[in-house]
């Protein structure tokens, strides 16, 4: 029995959890290949034109897994991972979009509804009952697997918080990379180096096809990057205290808090907001942060991406932005001296 996990959306946040969970249950896991032109086209053709690119890509990955011969496809319904907050409506209706658009695979979908009070998915085992029923697994085995998955996932988060980007953190948590080896490769912070706070959902930033690999482009320019998942939960929460109403989408809320964290943190020289064309939550969040960039005197740039994004355009924009930040920093240090 093979369960297919689409390499899209929250794969980039929960893969270590899901992989460990299924393998612990003795089920083989199959992951779709990194997003490529074929997968993207499959998704674009299958979806409503107006919807955002990460959802289109997700549909592409689901279809690709069907082609690859997975017996089951894991498409959880993300409802909530924090009390009083939700996921974007598109996440909540995603399994329905899939099962009604492709009725021939509807019977092969695993759709656990994820409703928990923390982003640790092991805390409410009842959401995995669907898997018990469909795959014939005992409750005890299920609990054991969840426990193990939780340990690995927490380890993954720990690596993220240390400043590792998600692919590295995943490899470290899953044991495919050696921590000692990794520690040596971290470059020491240099004097004239600039640090950018990059705001964006994990499924956009870490999908090199969607984000046009903006993170490695920045790395090549010798820019240090910080993203929201590298900031401890506690510090994010602190930023939101005293706000009359925060975002009611969990990850948008985290980005929102991360934005203010970056504004307040002295080591951050500027912000880049990477957002998908037509992203609903981001349209609000981006505007509020943009209006406040004046208050905090920190540059803020929006990069909007979709399936038509051009590489050269992006390269030119970020180069110009980084050059501007470097010049600003040099001027400031000269004045300071």
């Amino acid at each position, binding site marked *: 029995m093979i369960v297919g996990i689409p390499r899209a959306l929250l794969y980039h946040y929960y893969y270590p959890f899901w992989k460990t969970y299924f393998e612990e249950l003795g089920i083989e896991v199959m992951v779709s290949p990194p997003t490529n032109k074929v997968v993207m086209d499959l998704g674009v053709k299958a*979806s*409503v034109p*107006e*919807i955002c690119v990460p959802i289109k890509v997700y549909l592409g990955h689901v279809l690709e897994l069907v082609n690859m011969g997975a017996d089951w496809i894991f498409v959880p*319904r993300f*409802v909530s991972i924090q009390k*009083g*907050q*939700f*996921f*974007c*409506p*598109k996440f*909540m*209706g*995603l399994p*329905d*979009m899939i099962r*009604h*658009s492709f*009725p021939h695979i509807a019977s092969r979908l695993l759709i656990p*509804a994820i409703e928990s009070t923390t982003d640790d998915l092991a805390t409410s085992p009842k959401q995995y009952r669907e898997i018990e029923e469909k795959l014939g697994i005992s409750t005890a085995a299920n609990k054991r697997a969840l426990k193990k998955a939780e340990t690995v996932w927490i380890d993954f988060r720990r690596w993220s918080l240390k400043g590792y980007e998600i692919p590295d953190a995943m490899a470290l948590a899953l044991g495919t990379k050696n921590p000692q080896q990794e520690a040596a490769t971290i470059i020491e912070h240099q004097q004239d180096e600039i640090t950018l706070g990059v705001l964006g959902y994990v499924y956009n930033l870490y999908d090199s096809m969607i984000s046009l690999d903006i993170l490695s482009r920045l790395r090549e320019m010798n820019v240090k990057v910080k993203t929201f998942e590298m900031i401890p939960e506690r510090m994010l929460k602190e930023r939101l205290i005293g706000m*009359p*109403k925060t*975002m*009611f*989408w969990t990850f948008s809320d985290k980005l929102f808090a991360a934005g203010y964290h970056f504004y307040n943190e002295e080591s951050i020289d500027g912000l880049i907001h990477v957002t998908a*064309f*037509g*992203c*609903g*939550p*981001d*349209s*609000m969040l*981006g*505007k*509020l942060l943009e*209006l406040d960039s004046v208050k905090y005197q920190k540059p803020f740039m929006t990069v909007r991406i979709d399936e038509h994004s051009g590489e050269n355009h992006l390269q030119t924009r970020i180069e110009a932005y980084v050059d501007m930040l470097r010049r600003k920093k040099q001027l400031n240090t000269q004045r300071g001296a």
Partner: protein
Amino acid sequence: MKVSFPYMGTTVVYKKLLEMLGHEVIMPPKPTQKTINLGVKYSPEFACFPLKVIMGSYFEAIDKGAEVIITSGGHGPCRAGFYERVHRRILEAEGHFVDFIVFDSMFRDRKTFIENVKRLKGKTPLHKVIHALWMVYDMIGKLDKLEMEVQRIRAYEVNRGETTRIWEHIQKMFDKAYTRGALRNAYDKGRKMLAAIELHSVEEENRIRIGIVGEIYVVMEDSINMKMEQLLNSLGAEVERSQYLSQWVTYNMLPKWINWSHEKHILKLSDPYLPIQIGGHAKQSVGQIVDYSRRGFDGVVHLMPFGCLPELVSQSIIPKINEDFGIPVLTISLDEQAGIANNQTRVEAFIDLVKSKHKERLSQGEKNINKSTQHVTTTG
């Protein structure tokens, strides 16, 4: 207090309630191209269309002297729950420091809710407040009944535009009614006026009926949906809207135990397609399309703001409903870029299709009847 509110649908209702509570009401003008331009200029580019139009409305209301804006809130997952934060911030950035009274769910934050109610109530004695609420509730129901009639008969009016003119006049009559007697009078008079409109006679079986579903703001506010109801009527189709204010109030404002409204039935119908509430009116839209097909409607027009999160999900599910029930659905997404001529052509083509389908069904029905009579004659 000089209060104002977002413009949506039959605004006389909100105006009346606020006036009866002793506030000076600054009526926001009905959204025009100018309102939209103003809203688009200040709003985030990818915000949904209602946010932009309401933004424009606020600027216009503030221009007319509004000091306090009353609006609804929410806690997601639809973006509408966050409108007020963005609106307030943008207004502040433009130097307008107006006060907002936001009604979030009373069950979630009872304290703020009660505070808001107290502020609105002001010095009005309690019995007067109850009287005002009761009267407005009555008025919404009456207006909705008349509006449903308007949407039906306008399809067959002999003199183009007569029904719309009379409907506007009726709303003005309601605006002037402050006692229950006056309200009843206005209602009776309105009914008589509508009954007096000269109509083409169309046989029952030749009548085309179209349902409008979708996101509440673009469904209810005709100035931003290209006057969809009037357009459909003028093409000879009767129209029913998925949302009427009275239903919304019954479902959202009254306690659960008297809530066996239409809405519950609709939500149940959508269960096979969309098992949970995903915000906005997606679940309702899906249920309503099923409901309309069960009730023998000829087609459905599905309206949504461009990029609307919940409605995109319902749009993805519509092909399946269409397959299951055979009801034609036309989805139109609206925003400041919408071209009227383009959409008009689409609607006209849609109605042509619906009409020919209707005819086909009729002739199919006749054939079946002939067959069965033949059958009877041969066996007999």
